[in-house]
């Protein structure tokens, strides 16, 4: 296999009206959901670690558009957006954040540990980089079973330095496993900038010595993400082995709720927010291309606000888990043969 890694920042931003409106809606749902989660955290309704996805919405939205039934998703701890993109119920996600029985993990997982077998979402992993070998194992299972499904393993620029990531790359390439590795490079591993934590800052090149093709993508442009994603998924689905997509993206909020973000300038955040926001960018395209009117987009905003309010209300009304839940789900019962 020829190994090339390249930067393709200029991707075609064409899409039909229905698709573009769907992406707008999906990204907006993530944004509003996360804003609400931030509020609930501030009110003390959500506790512990809570990592918001605001600013990175185009990555999961664009990638999800490339997948088909049975493809699996796995990610790290900044996972709310991925779950919503997988069409998991916002009520169940929010209720998990508030630690209630109506949450996806019955209140026992929290922000970083949610799963949905039904939607092929395999978590939600709190240990940096651990999802990469696990996601590779999902791909291994696809190949073992002879399906043409692909696994998408998301991880951040910080995780990209983890040793186990390269152990997984090696096996995935060696065995031609159907895995798309999506590096969400939001420029900071917690508070350490890529330039300060990575010897090779062009992370899409990290697969070169494993013969894995890599590509840099404008992760703030959902249409560019989709275009790159389609190409990568097609490649992987055809049995050629893994593929790396480095999504250049940005998170507006801190690493977690307690992050004062002293390591970056306010102006940097403001600049990206005003010039590269994925939702505003798509909105402009929708309006310019005549796919939607301001009023139509406002209707979508309204619909989303309703969904998020419903999720928040549910997450506060749903009771805490029954004390008996403490002892359940530690082990599965063994069926008597």
């Amino acid at each position: 296999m020829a190994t090339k890694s390249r930067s393709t920042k200029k991707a075609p931003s064409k899409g039909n009206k229905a698709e573009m409106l769907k992406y707008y809606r999906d990204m907006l749902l993530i944004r509003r959901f996360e804003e609400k989660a931030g509020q609930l955290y501030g009110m003390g309704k959500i506790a512990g670690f809570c990592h918001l996805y605001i600013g990175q919405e185009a990555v999961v939205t664009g990638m999800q558009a490339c997948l088909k039934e049975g493809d699996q998703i796995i990610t790290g701890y900044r996972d709310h957006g991925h779950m919503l993109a997988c069409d998991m119920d916002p009520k169940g996600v929010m209720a998990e954040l508030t630690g209630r029985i109506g949450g996806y993990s019955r209140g026992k997982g929290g922000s970083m540990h949610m799963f949905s077998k039904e939607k092929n979402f395999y978590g939600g992993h709190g240990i940096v980089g651990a999802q990469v070998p696990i996601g590779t194992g999902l791909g291994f299972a696809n190949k073992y079973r002879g399906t043409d499904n692909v696994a998408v393993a998301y991880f951040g620029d910080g995780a990209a330095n983890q040793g186990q990531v390269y152990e997984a790359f090696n096996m995935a390439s060696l065995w031609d496993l159907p895995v798309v590795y999506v590096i969400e490079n939001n420029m900071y591993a917690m508070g350490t900038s890529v330039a300060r934590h990575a010897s090779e800052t062009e992370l899409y090149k990290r697969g070169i010595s494993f013969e894995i093709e890599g590509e840099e993508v404008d992760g703030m442009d959902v249409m560019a993400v989709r275009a790159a994603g389609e190409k990568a998924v097609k490649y992987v689905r055809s049995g050629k082995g893994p593929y790396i997509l480095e999504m250049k993206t940005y998170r507006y909020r801190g690493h977690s709720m307690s992050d004062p973000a002293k390591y970056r300038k306010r102006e940097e955040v403001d600049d990206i927010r005003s010039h590269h926001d994925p939702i505003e960018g798509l909105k402009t395209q929708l309006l310019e291309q005549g796919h939607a009117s301001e009023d139509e987009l406002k209707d979508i905003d309204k619909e989303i606000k309703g969904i998020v309010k419903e999720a928040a209300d549910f997450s506060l009304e749903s009771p805490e888990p029954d004390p008996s839940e403490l002892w359940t789900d530690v082990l599965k019962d063994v069926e008597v043969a």
Partner: protein
Amino acid sequence: MSVDILMPALSPTMEEGTLSKWLKKEGDTVSSGDVIAEIETDKATMEVEAVDEGTLAKILVPEGTEGVKVNAVIAVLAEDGEDASSVEAKNASSSSTESKEAAEHNTSKESDDESEAAAEPQAAILSDPTIPEGTSFTETTVRDALRDAMAEEMRRDESVFVMGEEVAEYQGAYKVTRELLQEFGAKRVVDTPITEHGFAGLGVGAAFAGLKPIVEFMTFNFAMQAIDQIINSAAKTLYMSGGQMGCPIVFRGPNGAASRVGAQHSQDYSAWYGQVPGLKVVAPYDAADAKGLLKAAIRDPNPVVFLEHELLYGNSFPVPDIDDHILPLGKAKVKRVGNDVTLVAHSRMVGFALQAAETLAEQGIDAEVIDLRTIRPLDTDTIIESVKKTNRIVCCEEGWRFFGIGAEIAATVTAEAFDYLDAPPARVHQKDVPLPYAANLEAMSLPNADDIVEAARGVCYVD
């Protein structure tokens, strides 16, 4: 001067082997590095290279001889100018004396297998209730019993596969996966790179997706690199997902001290994994249990850490000739019934406990021996029941004392059978040091049958 050619040891644990073939005959000239013979152990076939130059004067052990002890003189080499026809095997006796001395120094090593084998028939072996009366038994090594368990489960269920370092083409670093590649092919017997963290995680992912991986660690020492995936990913995900996910995976391989391999390759992880909710932890002693419990572990819908012992791989035990010999996880086994003191042990320590029981019997102390078999869930009922009868307990483990299996059992017994105890629970364990390399220090560090006898006499207030 003639030179004796000795039976070489091909691995740290080899005690004897078969001299399968001579590649040189008497009278042949031999140069250093020439392959002169092939020898075979239950693990491997290896070539013997000449170390010295000369003429092969006498072959003392003909090819096809089985059970040739390590360091036995197998041939004599005449050096240049020497009359090959007149040389004698003069050093034969001294080399065997040496090995005897070594055995005496190192009673927990070389000598125990024989004495265990001798002690075994005298012990009252209690059959599991699941084995019907009249069942015939076949002498099987622990190694082959484990292999048979995997092969049977792989035949039964397409989703079972085995992966790890050298499991396929090499036939297993300890030959536990011997011939699985030939039967099941490379798709289901997967050689991995030497990347424990990565392939353990990959196995967890495959298990999340519904496959049933058997992940072999060449030894559990190397699983330290993968312990995050074992605990944080495999053990905790069912709980963290509110019961949605599942991780039907077996992590298996040799655990504990091998022989003369030093501290980094000689650690008992029973207590480490035993502490983690969400895991099951199994540590069998004999071949029948190894087989029955491994089959159960593979079928179990939960992650199972299956701790084997390298020094038991080559030991043979009767395995019942029944189609599907499967044993429940979480049940201890009373290996010997007694009234005066309870000895609890798992894995290799069970052999020492049985030996100790024989010695104690000669001294008038009637010991009951319990093989824990499963560390988690721990069968405390069987232990408590025994202590209520004997009123004394010695907890035996190969691992370190602090925060160990023995500590847990002693605390449980104290809490649940306090009124029955006639002495504080005693513990036998490895000395609180990294395992040393030197033979004498290693033997001092590891617990053995004598330590158990001493501890049992202590709780019986004898002496």
